[in-house]
Protein backbone atom coordinates (compact mmCIF):
# COMPACT_ATOMS: atom_id res chain seq x y z
CA UNK A 1 0.00 0.00 0.00
CA UNK A 2 2.79 2.39 0.95
CA UNK A 3 4.54 1.61 -2.33
CA UNK A 4 1.38 2.52 -4.24
CA UNK A 5 1.14 5.87 -2.46
CA UNK A 6 4.79 6.62 -3.21
CA UNK A 7 4.22 5.63 -6.84
CA UNK A 8 1.18 7.90 -7.14
CA UNK A 9 3.09 10.85 -5.67
CA UNK A 10 6.02 10.09 -7.95
CA UNK A 11 3.72 10.10 -10.98
CA UNK A 12 2.08 13.31 -9.79
CA UNK A 13 5.39 15.14 -9.43
CA UNK A 14 6.69 13.78 -12.72
CA UNK A 15 3.54 15.08 -14.43
CA UNK A 16 3.86 18.39 -12.64
CA UNK A 17 7.51 18.80 -13.61
CA UNK A 18 6.57 17.94 -17.18
CA UNK A 19 3.91 20.66 -17.19
CA UNK A 20 6.35 23.19 -15.79
CA UNK A 21 9.01 22.16 -18.32
CA UNK A 22 6.50 22.46 -21.17
CA UNK A 23 5.38 25.81 -19.86
CA UNK A 24 8.94 27.11 -19.76
CA UNK A 25 9.63 25.62 -23.19
CA UNK A 26 6.64 27.36 -24.72
CA UNK A 27 7.85 30.63 -23.25
CA UNK A 28 11.30 29.97 -24.72
CA UNK A 29 9.81 29.24 -28.12
CA UNK A 30 8.30 32.71 -28.16
CA UNK A 31 11.70 34.27 -27.71
CA UNK A 32 12.25 37.38 -29.80
CA UNK A 33 14.13 36.64 -32.98
CA UNK A 34 14.42 40.09 -34.49
CA UNK A 35 15.74 42.91 -32.37
CA UNK A 36 17.70 46.06 -32.98
CA UNK A 37 21.42 45.31 -32.74
CA UNK A 38 23.29 47.17 -30.05
CA UNK A 39 26.02 49.28 -31.60
CA UNK A 40 29.17 50.26 -29.77
CA UNK A 41 29.29 54.00 -29.42
CA UNK A 42 25.61 54.41 -30.23
CA UNK A 43 23.95 57.26 -28.35
CA UNK A 44 21.58 55.64 -25.87
CA UNK A 45 21.05 58.70 -23.69
CA UNK A 46 17.50 59.07 -25.01
CA UNK A 47 16.49 55.43 -24.64
CA UNK A 48 13.53 54.91 -22.27
CA UNK A 49 14.24 53.22 -18.95
CA UNK A 50 11.00 53.74 -16.96
CA UNK A 51 7.39 54.44 -17.79
CA UNK A 52 5.25 56.30 -15.26
CA UNK A 53 1.50 56.86 -15.40
CA UNK A 54 0.70 58.72 -12.17
CA UNK A 55 -3.08 58.40 -12.32
CA UNK A 56 -2.81 54.59 -12.52
CA UNK A 57 0.11 54.39 -10.05
CA UNK A 58 2.21 52.75 -12.73
CA UNK A 59 5.99 52.97 -12.35
CA UNK A 60 7.47 50.28 -14.56
CA UNK A 61 10.90 49.36 -15.85
CA UNK A 62 11.26 49.35 -19.64
CA UNK A 63 12.52 46.29 -21.51
CA UNK A 64 13.56 46.36 -25.18
CA UNK A 65 11.49 44.08 -27.38
CA UNK A 66 11.52 43.24 -31.09
CA UNK A 67 9.50 40.97 -33.35
CA UNK A 68 8.62 37.29 -32.86
CA UNK A 69 9.13 34.63 -35.51
CA UNK A 70 5.49 34.87 -36.53
CA UNK A 71 5.66 38.62 -37.15
CA UNK A 72 4.02 39.64 -33.91
CA UNK A 73 5.50 42.31 -31.65
CA UNK A 74 7.26 40.71 -28.69
CA UNK A 75 6.15 41.34 -25.11
CA UNK A 76 8.12 42.05 -21.93
CA UNK A 77 9.41 39.04 -20.03
CA UNK A 78 8.12 40.35 -16.70
CA UNK A 79 4.46 41.13 -16.22
CA UNK A 80 5.23 44.27 -14.21
CA UNK A 81 7.56 45.68 -16.91
CA UNK A 82 6.67 47.33 -20.19
CA UNK A 83 8.32 46.47 -23.52
CA UNK A 84 9.55 49.20 -25.83
CA UNK A 85 9.55 48.25 -29.54
CA UNK A 86 13.11 49.26 -30.28
CA UNK A 87 12.93 48.60 -34.04
CA UNK A 88 10.63 51.60 -34.25
CA UNK A 89 10.82 55.15 -33.00
CA UNK A 90 12.60 56.23 -29.85
CA UNK A 91 10.23 58.12 -27.51
CA UNK A 92 10.59 61.83 -28.14
CA UNK A 93 11.83 61.44 -31.71
CA UNK A 94 9.78 61.78 -34.86
CA UNK A 95 7.16 59.07 -35.33
CA UNK A 96 5.35 56.69 -33.03
CA UNK A 97 7.21 54.99 -30.22
CA UNK A 98 5.35 51.90 -29.03
CA UNK A 99 5.29 50.17 -25.65
CA UNK A 100 3.37 47.05 -24.69
CA UNK A 101 2.49 45.78 -21.25
CA UNK A 102 0.80 42.64 -19.98
CA UNK A 103 -2.87 42.77 -19.08
CA UNK A 104 -2.55 39.94 -16.58
CA UNK A 105 0.11 37.65 -15.17
CA UNK A 106 0.29 33.90 -15.54
CA UNK A 107 -1.21 33.44 -12.09
CA UNK A 108 -4.16 35.57 -13.07
CA UNK A 109 -3.10 38.58 -11.06
CA UNK A 110 -3.39 42.01 -12.69
CA UNK A 111 -0.28 43.01 -14.64
CA UNK A 112 1.19 46.42 -15.38
CA UNK A 113 -1.43 47.51 -17.94
CA UNK A 114 -4.45 45.89 -16.31
CA UNK A 115 -6.09 49.28 -15.87
CA UNK A 116 -4.91 50.88 -19.11
CA UNK A 117 -8.52 51.21 -20.26
CA UNK A 118 -9.13 53.68 -17.44
CA UNK A 119 -6.89 56.30 -19.03
CA UNK A 120 -8.74 59.38 -20.22
CA UNK A 121 -7.91 62.07 -22.73
CA UNK A 122 -5.52 64.50 -21.06
CA UNK A 123 -3.96 62.03 -18.62
CA UNK A 124 -0.22 62.28 -18.28
CA UNK A 125 2.32 59.61 -19.27
CA UNK A 126 5.98 60.12 -18.37
CA UNK A 127 8.99 58.43 -19.93
CA UNK A 128 12.24 58.51 -18.00
CA UNK A 129 15.34 58.10 -20.12
CA UNK A 130 18.90 56.84 -19.64
CA UNK A 131 20.40 60.27 -19.01
CA UNK A 132 18.28 62.69 -21.02
CA UNK A 133 15.52 64.62 -19.28
CA UNK A 134 12.10 62.94 -18.89
CA UNK A 135 9.44 63.26 -21.56
CA UNK A 136 5.80 64.03 -20.87
CA UNK A 137 3.06 62.72 -23.12
CA UNK A 138 -0.67 63.43 -22.92
CA UNK A 139 -3.34 60.89 -23.78
CA UNK A 140 -5.23 61.95 -26.90
CA UNK A 141 -7.43 58.89 -27.37
CA UNK A 142 -7.89 55.14 -27.20
CA UNK A 143 -8.93 52.55 -29.74
CA UNK A 144 -9.70 48.84 -29.64
CA UNK A 145 -8.30 46.71 -32.47
CA UNK A 146 -8.62 43.14 -33.57
CA UNK A 147 -5.36 41.22 -33.23
CA UNK A 148 -3.29 41.68 -36.38
CA UNK A 149 -1.68 44.54 -38.23
CA UNK A 150 -2.36 48.12 -37.25
CA UNK A 151 0.14 50.20 -39.15
CA UNK A 152 -1.10 53.51 -37.80
CA UNK A 153 -0.05 52.41 -34.33
CA UNK A 154 3.61 52.14 -35.41
CA UNK A 155 3.87 54.22 -38.53
CA UNK A 156 2.70 57.77 -37.91
CA UNK A 157 5.22 60.22 -39.31
CA UNK A 158 3.76 63.53 -38.17
CA UNK A 159 4.90 64.62 -34.74
CA UNK A 160 6.17 62.63 -31.78
CA UNK A 161 3.92 60.04 -30.22
CA UNK A 162 3.94 57.24 -27.67
CA UNK A 163 1.38 54.48 -28.10
CA UNK A 164 0.65 51.97 -25.33
CA UNK A 165 -0.74 48.51 -26.07
CA UNK A 166 -2.33 45.79 -23.98
CA UNK A 167 -4.94 43.07 -24.36
CA UNK A 168 -8.69 43.57 -24.24
CA UNK A 169 -11.85 41.59 -24.90
CA UNK A 170 -12.36 37.97 -23.89
CA UNK A 171 -9.98 35.04 -23.61
CA UNK A 172 -9.97 32.66 -26.57
CA UNK A 173 -8.69 29.34 -25.31
CA UNK A 174 -8.16 27.95 -28.81
CA UNK A 175 -6.06 30.87 -29.96
CA UNK A 176 -4.49 31.37 -26.53
CA UNK A 177 -5.11 35.07 -26.89
CA UNK A 178 -7.54 37.75 -25.85
CA UNK A 179 -9.96 38.73 -28.60
CA UNK A 180 -8.97 42.42 -28.84
CA UNK A 181 -6.08 44.82 -28.39
CA UNK A 182 -6.37 48.16 -26.63
CA UNK A 183 -4.16 51.00 -27.87
CA UNK A 184 -3.78 54.29 -26.03
CA UNK A 185 -2.45 57.08 -28.23
CA UNK A 186 -0.45 59.89 -26.65
CA UNK A 187 1.29 63.03 -27.95
CA UNK A 188 4.53 64.54 -26.73
CA UNK A 189 3.97 67.80 -24.87
CA UNK A 190 7.20 68.31 -22.94
CA UNK A 191 10.83 67.43 -23.55
CA UNK A 192 13.17 67.22 -26.54
Amino acid at each position, binding site marked *: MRKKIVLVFLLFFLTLSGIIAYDKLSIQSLAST*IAAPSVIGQDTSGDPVRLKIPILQIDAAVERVG*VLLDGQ*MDVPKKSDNVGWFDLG*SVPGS*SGSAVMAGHFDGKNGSPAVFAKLDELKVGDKVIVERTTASPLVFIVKGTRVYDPG*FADEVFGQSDGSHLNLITCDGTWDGMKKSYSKRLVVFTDLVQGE
Partner: protein
Amino acid sequence: MNISKLSVVVVLLLSPFLFISVPFANAATSPGLGKANTFSILSSTYTNTVGGTTINGDLGYTTGPATPPTVNGTTHIANSTYNQAGLDQAAVLAILNSQPCTHTFPNGPIDLATDTTHGAIGVYTPGVYCTGAASAASIGAGGITLNGGGTYIFRIDGALTTVANSQVALAGGASSCDIFWTPTGATTLGANSTFFGTNIDAAGITIGSTVTWVGRALAFGGTVSTDTDTITTQACAATPISSSSGSGSNSSRSFSAPSMPGPCISDPVTNTPLIISANRLSPTSVTLSWGPYTGTDTFNVRYGFTNGEWLYNTNVTGFSTTLNDLPGNRPIWVQVASRNNCAIGTYGEPRLVGSPRLPNTGFAPNIMDMTWLLLGYHY
Protein backbone atom coordinates in the same frame (compact mmCIF):
# COMPACT_ATOMS: atom_id res chain seq x y z
CA MET B 1 65.76 58.34 -21.87
CA ASN B 2 68.28 58.31 -24.67
CA ILE B 3 67.95 60.19 -27.92
CA SER B 4 66.60 57.29 -29.95
CA LYS B 5 63.88 56.55 -27.40
CA LEU B 6 63.01 60.23 -27.24
CA SER B 7 62.69 60.41 -30.99
CA VAL B 8 60.40 57.41 -31.01
CA VAL B 9 58.18 59.06 -28.41
CA VAL B 10 58.11 62.31 -30.36
CA VAL B 11 57.20 60.50 -33.56
CA LEU B 12 54.45 58.58 -31.79
CA LEU B 13 53.05 61.77 -30.29
CA LEU B 14 53.10 63.50 -33.64
CA SER B 15 51.89 60.56 -35.66
CA PRO B 16 48.18 61.47 -35.52
CA PHE B 17 49.07 64.79 -37.08
CA LEU B 18 51.50 63.29 -39.58
CA PHE B 19 48.77 61.02 -40.90
CA ILE B 20 46.05 63.60 -41.15
CA SER B 21 45.09 63.25 -44.76
CA VAL B 22 44.32 66.21 -46.93
CA PRO B 23 42.20 64.53 -49.56
CA PHE B 24 39.98 67.49 -50.16
CA ALA B 25 42.63 70.17 -50.09
CA ASN B 26 42.60 70.02 -53.88
CA ALA B 27 38.95 69.58 -54.74
CA ALA B 28 38.31 67.70 -57.95
CA THR B 29 37.25 69.82 -60.91
CA SER B 30 35.10 69.10 -63.93
CA PRO B 31 36.92 69.69 -67.21
CA GLY B 32 35.13 71.14 -70.16
CA LEU B 33 34.33 68.55 -72.78
CA GLY B 34 34.82 70.55 -75.94
CA LYS B 35 33.16 69.02 -78.97
CA ALA B 36 32.38 65.91 -76.98
CA ASN B 37 29.98 67.93 -74.83
CA THR B 38 26.92 67.40 -77.01
CA PHE B 39 27.46 63.69 -77.70
CA SER B 40 25.34 61.11 -75.97
CA ILE B 41 27.30 58.37 -77.74
CA LEU B 42 30.69 58.71 -79.37
CA SER B 43 32.17 55.51 -80.78
CA SER B 44 34.13 54.05 -83.63
CA THR B 45 31.58 51.26 -83.93
CA TYR B 46 28.05 51.78 -82.76
CA THR B 47 25.96 48.62 -82.41
CA ASN B 48 22.20 48.55 -82.09
CA THR B 49 20.18 45.62 -83.36
CA VAL B 50 16.67 46.30 -82.08
CA GLY B 51 14.40 49.30 -82.14
CA GLY B 52 13.46 51.31 -79.11
CA THR B 53 16.67 53.12 -78.21
CA THR B 54 16.31 56.87 -77.81
CA ILE B 55 19.30 59.20 -77.79
CA ASN B 56 18.58 62.70 -76.53
CA GLY B 57 21.85 64.22 -77.75
CA ASP B 58 24.33 63.73 -80.57
CA LEU B 59 25.47 60.39 -81.93
CA GLY B 60 28.87 59.79 -83.52
CA TYR B 61 30.41 56.75 -85.18
CA THR B 62 32.40 55.44 -88.11
CA THR B 63 30.65 52.09 -88.39
CA GLY B 64 26.92 52.38 -87.86
CA PRO B 65 24.21 50.19 -86.39
CA ALA B 66 21.97 47.60 -88.05
CA THR B 67 18.92 49.31 -86.57
CA PRO B 68 19.10 53.08 -86.20
CA PRO B 69 17.98 54.49 -82.86
CA THR B 70 15.80 57.55 -82.42
CA VAL B 71 18.22 60.46 -82.25
CA ASN B 72 16.95 63.76 -80.89
CA GLY B 73 20.18 65.47 -81.87
CA THR B 74 22.72 65.30 -84.68
CA THR B 75 24.31 62.16 -86.04
CA HIS B 76 27.96 62.67 -86.97
CA ILE B 77 29.43 59.93 -89.16
CA ALA B 78 33.20 60.23 -89.25
CA ASN B 79 33.03 63.97 -89.96
CA SER B 80 35.22 66.76 -88.61
CA THR B 81 33.07 67.31 -85.52
CA TYR B 82 33.26 63.61 -84.81
CA ASN B 83 37.03 63.57 -85.17
CA GLN B 84 37.45 66.64 -82.98
CA ALA B 85 35.18 65.15 -80.34
CA GLY B 86 37.46 62.12 -80.34
CA LEU B 87 40.52 64.30 -79.75
CA ASP B 88 38.70 66.14 -76.99
CA GLN B 89 37.68 62.86 -75.38
CA ALA B 90 41.37 61.97 -75.08
CA ALA B 91 42.23 65.40 -73.72
CA VAL B 92 39.49 65.27 -71.12
CA LEU B 93 40.64 61.83 -70.03
CA ALA B 94 44.16 63.16 -69.54
CA ILE B 95 42.86 66.00 -67.40
CA LEU B 96 40.73 63.66 -65.32
CA ASN B 97 43.67 61.31 -64.85
CA SER B 98 45.88 64.17 -63.69
CA GLN B 99 43.74 64.84 -60.63
CA PRO B 100 44.99 63.17 -57.44
CA CYS B 101 42.95 60.45 -55.82
CA THR B 102 41.09 61.56 -52.72
CA HIS B 103 40.25 57.98 -51.85
CA THR B 104 41.84 54.76 -53.04
CA PHE B 105 39.94 51.55 -52.49
CA PRO B 106 41.76 48.46 -51.24
CA ASN B 107 43.28 46.32 -53.97
CA GLY B 108 40.91 43.88 -55.61
CA PRO B 109 37.44 44.15 -57.13
CA ILE B 110 35.27 46.76 -55.44
CA ASP B 111 31.49 46.86 -55.20
CA LEU B 112 30.77 50.55 -54.86
CA ALA B 113 27.34 49.75 -53.42
CA THR B 114 28.74 47.85 -50.44
CA ASP B 115 32.15 49.42 -49.90
CA THR B 116 32.65 51.12 -46.55
CA THR B 117 36.28 52.16 -46.85
CA HIS B 118 35.32 55.48 -48.45
CA GLY B 119 32.59 56.42 -45.94
CA ALA B 120 28.88 55.64 -45.50
CA ILE B 121 27.78 52.59 -47.40
CA GLY B 122 26.35 53.41 -50.80
CA VAL B 123 26.85 57.16 -50.46
CA TYR B 124 29.60 59.14 -52.14
CA THR B 125 30.47 62.79 -51.79
CA PRO B 126 32.45 64.75 -54.38
CA GLY B 127 36.01 63.50 -54.86
CA VAL B 128 38.34 61.37 -56.92
CA TYR B 129 37.77 57.69 -56.15
CA CYS B 130 40.42 55.31 -57.42
CA THR B 131 40.50 51.54 -57.43
CA GLY B 132 43.70 49.69 -56.63
CA ALA B 133 46.04 48.48 -59.36
CA ALA B 134 44.30 46.21 -61.87
CA SER B 135 41.13 46.33 -59.78
CA ALA B 136 37.68 46.41 -61.33
CA ALA B 137 34.65 48.17 -59.91
CA SER B 138 31.01 47.23 -59.89
CA ILE B 139 27.73 48.65 -58.66
CA GLY B 140 25.69 46.01 -56.93
CA ALA B 141 21.98 45.74 -56.31
CA GLY B 142 22.02 48.27 -53.49
CA GLY B 143 23.06 51.02 -55.90
CA ILE B 144 24.86 54.19 -54.93
CA THR B 145 23.89 57.77 -54.23
CA LEU B 146 26.15 60.66 -55.17
CA ASN B 147 25.39 63.29 -52.59
CA GLY B 148 26.43 66.92 -52.89
CA GLY B 149 27.38 69.49 -55.50
CA GLY B 150 30.90 69.08 -56.90
CA THR B 151 32.97 66.84 -59.12
CA TYR B 152 32.98 63.06 -58.90
CA ILE B 153 35.68 61.08 -60.68
CA PHE B 154 35.69 57.29 -60.53
CA ARG B 155 39.08 56.16 -61.82
CA ILE B 156 38.89 52.43 -62.28
CA ASP B 157 41.94 50.39 -63.25
CA GLY B 158 39.86 47.65 -64.82
CA ALA B 159 36.30 47.04 -65.92
CA LEU B 160 33.18 48.81 -64.70
CA THR B 161 30.09 46.69 -64.30
CA THR B 162 26.65 47.43 -62.94
CA VAL B 163 24.17 44.70 -62.08
CA ALA B 164 20.64 44.54 -63.42
CA ASN B 165 18.18 46.95 -61.79
CA SER B 166 20.96 48.82 -59.98
CA GLN B 167 20.67 52.53 -59.49
CA VAL B 168 23.01 55.46 -59.44
CA ALA B 169 21.04 58.22 -57.74
CA LEU B 170 21.85 61.90 -57.27
CA ALA B 171 21.11 63.95 -54.19
CA GLY B 172 22.05 67.22 -52.55
CA GLY B 173 22.88 69.10 -55.75
CA ALA B 174 24.93 66.41 -57.50
CA SER B 175 24.77 66.84 -61.29
CA SER B 176 25.47 64.46 -64.14
CA CYS B 177 27.61 67.24 -65.64
CA ASP B 178 30.14 66.71 -62.84
CA ILE B 179 30.29 62.91 -62.76
CA PHE B 180 33.06 61.11 -64.64
CA TRP B 181 33.87 57.43 -64.97
CA THR B 182 37.21 56.43 -66.48
CA PRO B 183 37.56 52.65 -66.47
CA THR B 184 40.52 51.17 -68.32
CA GLY B 185 38.57 47.97 -69.02
CA ALA B 186 35.19 47.61 -70.68
CA THR B 187 32.02 49.08 -69.23
CA THR B 188 28.90 46.90 -68.96
CA LEU B 189 25.66 48.30 -67.58
CA GLY B 190 23.09 45.80 -66.36
CA ALA B 191 19.57 45.64 -67.71
CA ASN B 192 17.06 48.12 -66.36
CA SER B 193 19.73 50.01 -64.47
CA THR B 194 20.05 53.76 -64.04
CA PHE B 195 23.35 55.51 -64.59
CA PHE B 196 24.59 59.10 -64.40
CA GLY B 197 27.67 60.82 -65.70
CA THR B 198 30.20 60.88 -68.52
CA ASN B 199 31.89 57.55 -69.08
CA ILE B 200 35.12 57.71 -71.08
CA ASP B 201 36.02 54.19 -72.05
CA ALA B 202 37.70 53.37 -75.35
CA ALA B 203 37.73 49.70 -74.27
CA GLY B 204 34.03 49.64 -75.10
CA ILE B 205 30.68 50.34 -73.48
CA THR B 206 27.89 47.77 -73.51
CA ILE B 207 24.58 49.13 -72.32
CA GLY B 208 22.11 46.45 -71.26
CA SER B 209 18.45 46.58 -72.16
CA THR B 210 16.16 49.37 -70.96
CA VAL B 211 18.91 51.31 -69.24
CA THR B 212 18.30 54.94 -68.35
CA TRP B 213 21.50 56.94 -68.60
CA VAL B 214 21.88 60.67 -68.10
CA GLY B 215 25.31 61.64 -69.37
CA ARG B 216 27.63 60.46 -72.16
CA ALA B 217 29.04 57.21 -73.44
CA LEU B 218 32.37 58.30 -74.95
CA ALA B 219 34.22 55.41 -76.55
CA PHE B 220 35.99 56.99 -79.51
CA GLY B 221 38.24 54.20 -80.77
CA GLY B 222 35.96 51.55 -79.32
CA THR B 223 32.46 50.12 -79.55
CA VAL B 224 29.23 51.23 -77.90
CA SER B 225 26.23 48.88 -77.86
CA THR B 226 22.68 49.82 -76.96
CA ASP B 227 19.49 47.81 -76.50
CA THR B 228 16.18 49.63 -76.03
CA ASP B 229 17.88 52.26 -73.89
CA THR B 230 17.31 55.93 -73.20
CA ILE B 231 20.39 58.11 -73.08
CA THR B 232 19.97 61.77 -72.29
CA THR B 233 22.72 64.34 -72.39
CA GLN B 234 22.30 67.40 -70.23
CA ALA B 235 23.14 70.86 -71.44
CA CYS B 236 26.14 71.33 -69.17
CA ALA B 237 28.07 74.53 -68.59
CA ALA B 238 30.03 76.04 -71.47
CA THR B 239 32.96 73.83 -72.31
CA PRO B 240 35.51 75.54 -74.53
CA ILE B 241 38.04 72.76 -74.40
CA SER B 242 38.83 72.97 -78.11
CA SER B 243 37.06 76.12 -79.20
CA SER B 244 40.16 78.22 -79.62
CA SER B 245 42.16 76.17 -82.05
CA GLY B 246 40.76 72.75 -82.43
CA SER B 247 44.31 71.52 -82.62
CA GLY B 248 44.04 69.17 -79.73
CA SER B 249 46.93 70.92 -78.02
CA ASN B 250 46.51 71.34 -74.29
CA SER B 251 48.39 74.62 -74.33
CA SER B 252 45.72 76.31 -76.40
CA ARG B 253 42.82 75.15 -74.31
CA SER B 254 40.97 76.67 -71.45
CA PHE B 255 39.17 74.44 -69.05
CA SER B 256 36.05 75.49 -67.27
CA ALA B 257 35.68 74.23 -63.75
CA PRO B 258 32.10 74.93 -62.77
CA SER B 259 31.63 74.89 -59.06
CA MET B 260 27.90 74.60 -59.46
CA PRO B 261 26.05 71.93 -61.37
CA GLY B 262 25.28 72.81 -64.93
CA PRO B 263 21.82 73.90 -66.01
CA CYS B 264 19.32 71.10 -66.03
CA ILE B 265 16.90 70.26 -68.78
CA SER B 266 14.11 69.41 -66.35
CA ASP B 267 12.28 71.75 -63.99
CA PRO B 268 13.54 71.93 -60.41
CA VAL B 269 12.27 69.26 -58.05
CA THR B 270 9.98 70.96 -55.57
CA ASN B 271 7.49 68.40 -54.25
CA THR B 272 8.21 66.68 -50.94
CA PRO B 273 6.20 63.46 -50.86
CA LEU B 274 4.43 62.16 -47.79
CA ILE B 275 3.86 58.43 -47.31
CA ILE B 276 0.10 58.01 -47.06
CA SER B 277 -0.27 54.29 -46.42
CA ALA B 278 1.95 51.32 -45.83
CA ASN B 279 1.17 47.66 -45.33
CA ARG B 280 2.97 44.38 -44.99
CA LEU B 281 2.12 42.01 -47.84
CA SER B 282 4.16 39.04 -46.66
CA PRO B 283 7.00 38.36 -44.24
CA THR B 284 9.43 39.59 -46.92
CA SER B 285 7.53 42.32 -48.74
CA VAL B 286 5.78 45.58 -47.96
CA THR B 287 3.82 48.04 -50.04
CA LEU B 288 3.50 51.78 -49.63
CA SER B 289 1.89 54.73 -51.38
CA TRP B 290 2.47 58.47 -51.25
CA GLY B 291 1.40 61.84 -52.54
CA PRO B 292 0.90 64.60 -53.61
CA TYR B 293 -0.39 63.45 -56.95
CA THR B 294 0.53 66.53 -58.92
CA GLY B 295 3.81 67.94 -60.14
CA THR B 296 5.71 64.75 -60.90
CA ASP B 297 5.26 61.02 -61.01
CA THR B 298 8.88 60.02 -60.67
CA PHE B 299 10.29 59.35 -57.23
CA ASN B 300 13.23 57.89 -55.38
CA VAL B 301 12.41 55.58 -52.47
CA ARG B 302 15.17 54.85 -50.00
CA TYR B 303 15.05 52.53 -47.02
CA GLY B 304 17.03 50.87 -44.27
CA PHE B 305 16.64 49.22 -40.91
CA THR B 306 17.39 52.30 -38.82
CA ASN B 307 15.90 55.74 -39.21
CA GLY B 308 18.56 57.83 -40.95
CA GLU B 309 20.77 54.97 -42.14
CA TRP B 310 19.60 54.44 -45.72
CA LEU B 311 21.01 51.26 -47.23
CA TYR B 312 18.99 50.93 -50.43
CA ASN B 313 17.16 53.11 -52.89
CA THR B 314 15.03 52.56 -55.94
CA ASN B 315 13.46 54.80 -58.54
CA VAL B 316 9.71 54.55 -58.97
CA THR B 317 7.37 55.92 -61.59
CA GLY B 318 3.93 56.26 -60.04
CA PHE B 319 2.69 56.77 -56.53
CA SER B 320 3.17 53.39 -54.92
CA THR B 321 5.65 50.57 -54.85
CA THR B 322 6.23 47.15 -53.37
CA LEU B 323 9.57 46.35 -51.78
CA ASN B 324 10.48 42.68 -51.91
CA ASP B 325 13.20 40.37 -50.62
CA LEU B 326 13.29 41.99 -47.18
CA PRO B 327 14.46 40.13 -44.08
CA GLY B 328 11.52 38.16 -42.66
CA ASN B 329 9.04 40.26 -40.71
CA ARG B 330 11.56 43.00 -40.09
CA PRO B 331 10.12 46.53 -40.28
CA ILE B 332 12.02 49.05 -42.41
CA TRP B 333 12.29 52.81 -42.40
CA VAL B 334 11.37 54.46 -45.68
CA GLN B 335 11.63 57.93 -47.19
CA VAL B 336 10.39 59.15 -50.55
CA ALA B 337 11.66 62.08 -52.64
CA SER B 338 10.52 63.49 -55.96
CA ARG B 339 13.07 63.18 -58.74
CA ASN B 340 13.64 64.01 -62.36
CA ASN B 341 16.47 63.22 -64.77
CA CYS B 342 18.72 65.77 -63.13
CA ALA B 343 18.33 65.57 -59.40
CA ILE B 344 16.50 64.21 -56.39
CA GLY B 345 14.46 66.61 -54.28
CA THR B 346 13.97 66.73 -50.54
CA TYR B 347 13.03 63.47 -48.88
CA GLY B 348 9.78 63.49 -46.93
CA GLU B 349 9.37 62.43 -43.31
CA PRO B 350 10.71 58.92 -42.64
CA ARG B 351 8.12 56.32 -41.79
CA LEU B 352 8.28 52.84 -40.30
CA VAL B 353 6.85 50.41 -42.84
CA GLY B 354 6.01 46.75 -42.35
CA SER B 355 5.30 47.09 -38.66
CA PRO B 356 4.57 43.93 -36.65
CA ARG B 357 1.19 42.55 -35.65
CA LEU B 358 -0.11 43.81 -32.34
CA PRO B 359 1.36 41.89 -29.39
CA ASN B 360 -0.38 39.24 -27.30
CA THR B 361 -0.04 40.55 -23.77
CA GLY B 362 -2.47 38.30 -21.95
CA PHE B 363 -2.37 34.91 -20.30
CA ALA B 364 -5.05 32.27 -19.95
CA PRO B 365 -7.03 32.09 -16.74
CA ASN B 366 -4.87 29.35 -15.30
CA ILE B 367 -6.62 26.02 -14.62
CA MET B 368 -3.66 24.99 -12.52
CA ASP B 369 -4.09 27.99 -10.25
CA MET B 370 -5.27 25.88 -7.33
CA THR B 371 -2.36 23.49 -7.80
CA TRP B 372 0.14 26.33 -7.84
CA LEU B 373 -1.57 27.87 -4.87
CA LEU B 374 -1.40 24.61 -2.91
CA LEU B 375 2.24 24.19 -3.84
CA GLY B 376 3.03 27.82 -3.10
CA TYR B 377 4.39 28.27 -6.65
CA HIS B 378 4.50 31.72 -8.11
CA TYR B 379 5.76 32.95 -11.46
